[in-house]
């Protein structure tokens, strides 16, 4: 493990990603302590509407006079909460299905994988939007809809790894010495399949933040006055082109966060993927 970490620490983009992710995590945890105007999550100050960036309001104020800088910091918690929930639920569905399909042969495995393929072929964004809308828009339905469209990625990965490992000599040997199926799956296969799952989860966190922002933007996720980044961008459109800061900074927040997860995920993938590892 040590040399792997050392390699990761030499990968400049990956370390940049890690730094961003840690930074956003800190914002999510300590946001209300850091934000200059923690009350601006909900409060409104009609006397200072749409002020451009200044020393008092680093990123300016919005149409209700709220400090955009504070609201972006406060929004980190919601964004990460959605992403973590969605990826966790998707993993909870996808990983067991992948193990099942990979370790068992026969119609059950076939059915699971066919359904997985089909769900993968559905345009994710469209399905998530449709489900969220039909289930009456709210944060919870948005998260459920996203989870329902993201689990197949994990099933695919775990299935491939399980198939590879369970046909290897080493599992045959374990069977030979009388190890039970449960033991083989949980002690030997799962730990080996875990690294590609981590890579996919990291990238998935970024992707989910992005899609959740689209939901917020279309008014199918967070509801006002939540300091949601996507929602804020939607609210800002009416005040363009004057209030450029209103749209710019929430978008940059999304950009930075998603970039952090992607850079980190790419770095991890380079470490895990033997094809790329060879070329270093």
């Amino acid at each position, binding site marked *: 493990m040590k040399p792997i970490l050392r390699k990761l620490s030499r990968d*400049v*983009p990956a370390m*940049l990603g890690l730094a961003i992710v840690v930074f956003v995590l800190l914002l999510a945890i300590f946001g209300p302590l850091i934000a200059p105007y923690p009350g601006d999550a909900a409060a409104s100050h009609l006397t200072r509407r749409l002020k451009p960036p200044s020393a008092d309001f680093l990123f300016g104020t919005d149409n209700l006079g709220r400090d955009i800088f504070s609201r972006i910091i406060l929004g980190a918690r919601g964004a990460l909460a959605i992403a973590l929930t969605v990826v966790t639920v998707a993993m909870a569905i996808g990983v067991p299905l992948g193990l099942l399909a990979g370790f068992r042969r026969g119609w059950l495995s076939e059915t699971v994988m*066919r*359904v997985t*393929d*089909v*769900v993968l*072929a*559905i*345009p*994710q*964004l*469209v*399905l998530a*939007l*449709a*489900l969220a*809308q*039909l*289930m*009456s828009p709210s944060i919870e339905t948005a998260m459920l809809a996203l989870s*329902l469209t993201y689990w197949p990625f994990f099933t695919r990965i775990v299935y491939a790894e399980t198939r590879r490992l369970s046909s290897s000599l080493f599992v045959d040997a374990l069977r030979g010495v009388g190890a039970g199926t449960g033991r083989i799956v949980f002690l030997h296969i799962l730990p080996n399949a875990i690294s590609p799952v981590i890579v996919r989860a990291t990238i998935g966190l*970024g992707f989910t933040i*992005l899609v959740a*922002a*689209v939901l917020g*933007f*279309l008014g*199918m996720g967070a509801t006002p006055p939540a300091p949601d980044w*996507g929602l804020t*961008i939607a609210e800002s*459109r009416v005040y*363009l*082109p004057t209030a*450029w800061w209103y*749209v*710019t900074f*929430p*978008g940059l927040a*999304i*950009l*930075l*966060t*998603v*970039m952090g997860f*992607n*850079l980190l995920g*790419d770095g991890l993938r380079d470490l895990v993927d033997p*094809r*790329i590892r*060879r*070329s*270093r």
Partner: protein
Amino acid sequence: MLRFVLRRTALVLPSLLGLLLVTFLLIHAVPSDPAAALAGDAATPEQIARLRHQYGFDRPIFEQFLLYLDKVAHLDFGESAFSHRPVTLDIAQRLPATLELTFCALALSVFVGVPLGVMAALNHNAWPDYLLRIFSVLGIAMAAFWVAIMLQLLFSMQLGWLPLRGELSSTMAQPPRATGFLVVDCLIAGRWDAFADALRHLALPAVTLALGGLATIVRFTRAGVLDTLQQDFVFYERAMGYRWLRLVWIFVLRNSVTATVTQIGLLFGGLIAGGVVVEAIFDWPGIGSYTVQAILTGDRQVMLAVTLLVGTVYAAVNILVDLVHGLLDPRLMEQG
């Protein structure tokens, strides 16, 4: 070759059926009343009940699916609750605009992305590579709807260089509809003014869409070239004194783009789906803005039809991708 295409098409049909079934179940498993949506806000409970019976929404769900399937087989996707026109007609009218936009975005991302990917690979683990990797991640990490608004803000509202929305200026007379592809129709009619105007309208949405695809193309080209550079034949070709530029851009690249071509196939589906929000923001009269409308109004017929459409395009493009693979690599062609 024809046999190959037919066989692949036959293989795709069950998947499309599965796609339709899963989407149908998901959409219908959701607690909401399609009849109420169809009837509109002002409808009385009796009217809703009548509609429910008329459309078969009171039957068991599997029966509903079979009924739906029978209609789909006749290219009948029902009526849009929003436009009150047959969904098939709406889609046929809007599809060309979406394809036009998607092709442009795809071409942009391929022609810029492939060279950048090669450059990143040649400078593996050096600063140009790091910068390109960061930039390509940037392309993926930007929310398309935000990029769209920012581009509008800069190029339309502030600088006034490019139009804000739409496919053609309202002052410009439409060319007669021949292919449905506006740019092509302008050319056919010899309308150069309209052609230039259409291109100017195409620029911002195409660039917005291309950014996400660009990143993917850069990454996969980079990985492919890195992989190829490890091969023995690259050393051999250098040892034989191949010109370096030709070696990289012809002999290495052709071996490296297999994965990129696969990605182009996947991207096409992704671009059509990703175009949903972008089209809505730019008021592009295509499938995307249609879908957003349908979603916001809970229009199930349209949602189902669009899902099937994207799935079909996706499958068709992937058959095409396999064909291109065969052309790129003679060994695959022989395996059939």
